[in-house]
C-alpha cells in the first residue's frame, strides 16, 4: 500500500517568475468567476453555473505540473481547470453565453467546455462521467507512445459512482499514465461528504495498488509539488496515481444556491475564506520570499479584473448561432 500524506512537501522549485504566473492564474480564475456570478445576477447569462472560487490552487497547482498537450478532463465546476490549462477567457465567456464564437459554438455552455488545443477533453455534467474518458486518454498516450499524461479532475461526490472503481482497476492493471485528482470541497451538492462516503478515501485507490496521496488544496505550492512528482512518475511509466486535495467552494453549489445555512454554517465559510484563502496565502509567501511587493500583487489583481471584464464584454457583444445550424455536429 502506498498511501502517504504530503501536505508539507513543497520541494519543487518555484522562482519569482513562476510564482507570479501561479498567482496571476489564480487571480484570473477568481476574477472570471466573480464576473460569471455577476452576469447571472444581472440575468445576462442563460442557465446556471457552478463557481470554482476557493479551489483555484488545485487547478493551478496541478495544471502547472502538466505540459500543454497533456490531457485533462473536468467537471460541472470546470471553469478553473479550463483556464489553468490555458483557455482563452473570451471564448469561455462566449460559450457561457451561448455564442457562436464560444469554444463549442454555444452547443455546450458552462458545463461542457472542451478545447483540444490545450488538451482539455471537456467538462462533464455527469458526476464521475469523465473518469472513463481520462483513463481512455491515458490508454491512448501509452499505446501511441507520446509520453502524455491524463489528469481526471472530479469532486469527492464522484466517489459514489461505480465507474470510477472500474476504471481505476483498469488503470492499475495496465499501468496507465493517469492521475485521479479528487477535489474534496466537503459537500456533494447540499450533503456533507461524511454522510455519503464510508471508510477512508485514500484506502480506495490504495486497494487497487494505486499510489494515493493527500494534500492541502488551499496551498498551491503543496499541490504543485505533489502533482509534479506524480505526473513525472506517470510519464516515466510508473502508473496511475490518486491525489486528494482538501479544498472549499466559496459560493453555493451553483450560482442560485444562496441560502446555505441548512447545510453549512456561515462561520465555516468565513473560516475557510479568511484563514485558508489560496490566493491570500500564496501572495503572502511571494512577499516573504521577496518575489513580489504587495503593490505588485495589487496590480496583478486589478489588471486581471480589467482583462476579465473586457473578455466578458467581448462575449456579450458576440452574435448567437443561427437556429438553422442546430443540425450541425450531430455526427462527425
Amino acid at each position, binding site marked *: 500500500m502506498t498511501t502517504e500524506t504530503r501536505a508539507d512537501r513543497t520541494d519543487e522549485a518555484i522562482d519569482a517568475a513562476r510564482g507570479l504566473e501561479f498567482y496571476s492564474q489564480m487571480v484570473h480564475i477568481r476574477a472570471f468567476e466573480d464576473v460569471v456570478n455577476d452576469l447571472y445576477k444581472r440575468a445576462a447569462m442563460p442557465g446556471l453555473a457552478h463557481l470554482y472560487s476557493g479551489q483555484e490552487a488545485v487547478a493551478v497547482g496541478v495544471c502547472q505540473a502538466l505540459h500543454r498537450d497533456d490531457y485533462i478532463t473536468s467537471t460541472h465546476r470546470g471553469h478553473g481547470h479550463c483556464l489553468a490549462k490555458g483557455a482563452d477567457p473570451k471564448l469561455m465567456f462566449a460559450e457561457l453565453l451561448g455564442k457562436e464564437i464560444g469554444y463549442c459554438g454555444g452547443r455546450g455552455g458552462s458545463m461542457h467546455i472542451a478545447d483540444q488545443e490545450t488538451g482539455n477533453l471537456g467538462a462533464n455534467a455527469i458526476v464521475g462521467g469523465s473518469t472513463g474518458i481520462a483513463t481512455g486518454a491515458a490508454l491512448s498516450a501509452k499505446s501511441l507512445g507520446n509520453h502524455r499524461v491524463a489528469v481526471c479532475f472530479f469532486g469527492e461526490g464522484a466517489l*459514489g459512482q461505480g465507474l470510477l472503481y472500474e476504471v481505476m482497476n483498469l488503470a492499475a492493471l495496465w499501468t496507465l499514465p493517469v492521475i485521479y485528482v479528487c477535489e474534496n470541497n466537503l459537500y456533494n451538492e447540499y450533503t456533507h461528504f461524511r454522510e455519503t462516503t464510508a471508510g477512508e478515501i485514500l484506502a480506495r485507490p490504495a486497494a487497487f495498488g494505486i499510489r494515493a496521496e493527500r494534500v492541502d488544496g488551499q496551498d498551491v505550492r503543496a499541490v504543485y509539488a505533489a502533482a509534479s512528482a506524480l505526473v513525472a512518475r506517470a510519464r516515466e511509466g510508473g502508473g496511475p496515481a490518486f491525489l486528494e486535495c482538501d479544498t472549499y467552494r466559496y459560493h453555493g453549489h451553483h450560482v442560485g444556491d444562496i441560502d446555505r445555512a441548512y447545510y453549512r454554517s456561515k462561520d465555516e465559510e468565513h473560516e475557510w475564506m479568511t484563514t485558508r484563502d489560496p490566493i491570500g496565502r500564496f501572495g503572502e509567501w511571494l512577499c516573504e520570499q521577496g518575489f513580489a511587493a504587495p503593490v505588485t500583487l495589487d496590480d496583478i489583481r486589478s489588471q486581471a479584473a480589467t482583462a476579465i471584464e473586457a473578455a466578458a464584454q467581448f462575449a456579450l457583444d458576440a452574435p448567437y448561432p443561427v437556429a438553422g445550424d442546430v443540425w450541425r455536429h450531430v455526427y462527425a
Partner: protein
Amino acid sequence: MPETPQRELTFAEAVREALAEEMRRDPRVVILGEDVAEAGTPFKVLSGLVEEFGRARVIDTPISEAGFTGVAVGAAMTGMRPVADIMFGDFLTLTMDQIVNQAAKIHYMSGGKLKVPMVLRTTMGAARRSAAQHSQSLHVWLSHVPGLKVVLPSTPYDAKGLLKTAIRDDNPVVFIEDKMMFRMKGPVPSDDYTIPFGVADVKRVGTDVTIVATSSMVQTALGAARMLEDAGISAEVIDPRTISPLDRGTIIASVKKTSRAVVVDEGHLQYGVTAEIASMIADEAFYHLDAPVKRLGAMDVPVPFSPPLEDATVPTEEALVDVVRGLFKKT
C-alpha cells in the same frame, strides 16, 4: 356536506402531498435519493418530508444512481415500497441495468413468484438552458421494456392521483415529471383519490382534429387548440397519462370522430412515443382518416445550450398549429 372550494396546488406540491399521504398510510413507503432529505431535492419538491418522516424514511444517498436503484429493487422484493428519486431523467442511463434487466423482468422470470413494487421518480424536459446532459426526455427507453409501467402526469391533479396509484402498484413504475411544470398550479382535492393507469383523459373536447399530447406537451396542445379555435378548427386534446399501459380505445374513438390526428411528445422524434401512437392510429383507424397522421417531437439532436438553438429543438404551440392546419389544406 358543504361544498368546499377547490384548493389550488402547484405540481410540486401535488407530488409532495401524494408522497406524504402514502407515507402516512403505509409505513413501508420510503424515499431514497440524492439530496432528498434536508435539501428536499434541487427542485424543492420534497421539502418538509424529512421533518415529518425522519431520515430513516427520507434517505439521502451518495451519488450512486445504479447502487440506490438496485437497493430499491431488492427492498421492493422483500417487503418495502421504495420510491427512488433520480434527480434528472438524464441519469436514468446510470440505472438501466437495475431497472431494465432486474426490476422489469423479475416478476416474469420468477414465474410470478417475486414482485418489485417500486417507483422510480424522475424528470424530463428541455428549455431550462441546462444543455445536453440535463435536458433529455428519455421516457421512451423505458416504455420499450415489457414489465415496466411509465407515467407522464400533465397537471397537479393527475400528478397526485397517478403517483398514489404508482406507489400502490405491485410493479416497477417509472414516474416522470417535466421540470418546467413544477410551478404550474391547478385544482387538487385534499382527499385520498387515485387515478387508474391506462385511462386517458380528454383534456379538451373537439370535433375536427385529435391532438394526442403527453406531459408538458398537453399545455402546448391546449394553447395550440385555442389558436386553432380562432381559425375555425375545433381540436380535441387527449392526454394518455400513462404511455405504458396505453389507452388505445380513447385515442381511437376520438380519431374515428375527428378523422385527423397529430401526436406530440417531447422525446426525440426518431423511434419515439409519437411513432408508436401514430402507427396504432394508422392501423386501427385508417379508414376513418382524412389526412396522414402527423408527429411532433424534440428535434433529433442533443439538446443544445444556446437559447436560440435550444428553442429550435422543442415543439411549440406555433409549430403544432402549423402542422394541424396542414391537415386541412386541400391538395
